[in-house]
């Protein structure tokens, strides 16, 4: 029974990692932009939700769409000002730019909103359902279902629609895509809009009813190994890897942590990631790249 509860908790937490990793993967899958600042983007979306729903006291059905609009606008601004000019540049520059963005967003949020913690609105219901002896956290369960739905929809989009396949070409190589007549600019714009929307959803699932502060951005770092494990280009991989890591963390936390003073569950995602990268650099479901001279 305990094991089952641990597994279920791990799966639900893992779904949260999955949706955060999804926001990261979507941007990469659609435009080959690596965004190390994803945690900060999620934090900004969360602050928008706080602003509209808590501060301006709009009802949820008005506040959430407004936050979505605000987040997408922010994503468009970032994409246009920063990443559009880096189209065709090596991955290196893009990674560095996202590092700059990380620092900038962290400072900007503190500047505009201040550093104090504040309550995040209760978007998803609180509490837990009880099935026999097993507790299922309501907001996490709804979040997990949402994640599953989004994963399947996005997978469908990227693999079965012509728009999605065009985006896949961009993810392969910018220059090649441009030579095929695919607008890389449009692709980056769409990528960011989708990515930011997913960040908003991730923020809601992660923070519903909890405390919001500047440290919310830390989830980004915890989801990076998840994205890598699943494969940077794979939508399904992100969610699956999230659940895998969630379960692994929960089990490690329960059974191994007491002997290692808490270290096992913390290093588990990273060790797993490094280990896998040694043998399968593209992750579980990523694209295998053949390099030529």
């Amino acid at each position, binding site marked *: 029974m305990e094991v089952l509860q641990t597994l279920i908790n791990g799966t639900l937490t893992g779904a949260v990692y999955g949706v955060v990793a999804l926001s990261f993967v979507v941007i990469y899958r659609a435009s080959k932009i690596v965004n190390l600042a994803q945690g900060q983007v999620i934090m900004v979306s969360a602050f928008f939700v706080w602003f509209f729903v808590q501060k301006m006291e709009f009802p949820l059905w008005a506040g959430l769409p407004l936050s979505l609009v605000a987040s997408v606008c922010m994503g468009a601004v970032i994409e246009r000002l920063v990443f559009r000019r880096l189209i065709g540049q090596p991955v*290196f520059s893009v990674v560095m730019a996202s590092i700059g963005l990380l620092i900038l967003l962290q400072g*900007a949020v503190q500047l505009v909103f201040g550093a104090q913690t504040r309550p995040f609105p209760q978007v998803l219901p609180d509490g837990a359902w009880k099935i026999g002896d097993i507790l299922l956290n309501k907001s996490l369960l709804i979040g997990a279902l949402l994640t599953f739905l989004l994963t399947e929809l996005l997978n469908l989009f990227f693999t079965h629609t012509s728009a999605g396949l065009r985006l896949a070409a961009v993810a392969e190589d910018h220059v090649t895509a441009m030579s095929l007549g695919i607008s890389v600019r449009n692709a980056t714009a769409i990528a960011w809009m989708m990515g930011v929307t997913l960040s908003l959803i991730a923020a809601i699932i992660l923070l519903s009813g909890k405390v919001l502060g500047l440290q919310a951005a830390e989830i980004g770092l915890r989801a990076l190994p998840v994205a890598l494990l699943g494969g940077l280009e794979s939508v399904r991989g992100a969610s699956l890897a999230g659940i895998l890591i969630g379960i692994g963390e929960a089990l490690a936390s329960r059974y191994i942590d007491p002997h290692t003073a808490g270290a096992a569950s913390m290093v588990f995602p990273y060790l797993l*990631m490094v280990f896998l990268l040694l043998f399968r650099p593209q992750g579980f479901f990523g694209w295998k790249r053949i390099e030529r001279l």
Partner: protein
Amino acid sequence: MSMLPSGVFFQSYAAEQGLLRTWPQRLGLAASLLLLASMGWLMNDYWLGILTLGGITLVAVLGLHITIGMAGLLNLGQSAFVGIGAFVAASMASNGWSIWVTLPCSGLAAGVVSILFGLPAVRIKGFYLALTTIAAQIIFPIVMIRLPDGWFGGSAGMSVEPPVILGWVINTPRSYFLLVLSVAAVAFLAATNLGRSRTGRAFRAIHDNDIASSVVGVNLAKVKIQAFFAGALFAGFSGALYAYFVRYVSTDQFTLWLSVWYVGMLIVGGMHSPFGAMLGVAVITLLQEGVHLLGTKVLSSFTGMSGGTVFSLTNVVLGGVIILMLLFEPLGLAHRWSILKSSYRIWPYPRG
């Protein structure tokens, strides 16, 4: 390469390959070193402290220049290697070893650990490697804290006594500054010479195209590990100096945020030369201090503003500067400087 005035000639290969080939160059170097050293007597304690800390950061960023700038291996875990150096220095100092021993040992320790994380570098490239180094940065405090208390102080960290060199105790701002200046100067020289050596050329080769260089005969695995080792060596020295300066080490002084700032400094200054590293450290440090000074003045005149608001500007400014640099001058300020120099040299003819 800079052009030499007419009349300068060499009579041996070694003389031609020297870094300083004419007497004005030698004079210029001696004068600037003397000027820097004299800062120890001219500047007030506050600015000496900033210069000292800047020098410590410079050594770490020089290491980063080797790994990222020369070899093209994105290393986002430099602060963890600095931390390893700092902890090793603190641990050895508490056991009575003098700085002559602890400084090299910290560098070596950091280097050895970096090999551990450089091994994946052989198979993993680019962004994936960056994530591996982030993993190193995150695992570092977790492991450090759980090692036996006697080794590295456990979760509380450990304190460090001031170093003693040739009988002098180094515990005034001036003496710290001179110590850091000497180490930084040696590190700068080492980094410059590394770039001119066979190993340095191998680094640049794998940066350009690692598969092609392996075809040409560069042992990819060995060179990549060497690149990591060199970068971490510098980081270890930086960490040891840091431990002696702050007189206390704990894992929360070496964070991912700090690693990110190091990379930011390198981007702004220019990753491809030690001079770029120096420019980056100088510019970012001055920017940071400038914003803080401005912020204090603003705060004292308008008590209406909240302190946190004003000082978060540092991050906004730094992030903005990094992005602007990447968009408009990816080769950094060092490139701008060299453009300036060459324009001056061939003025009034246009450059390019």
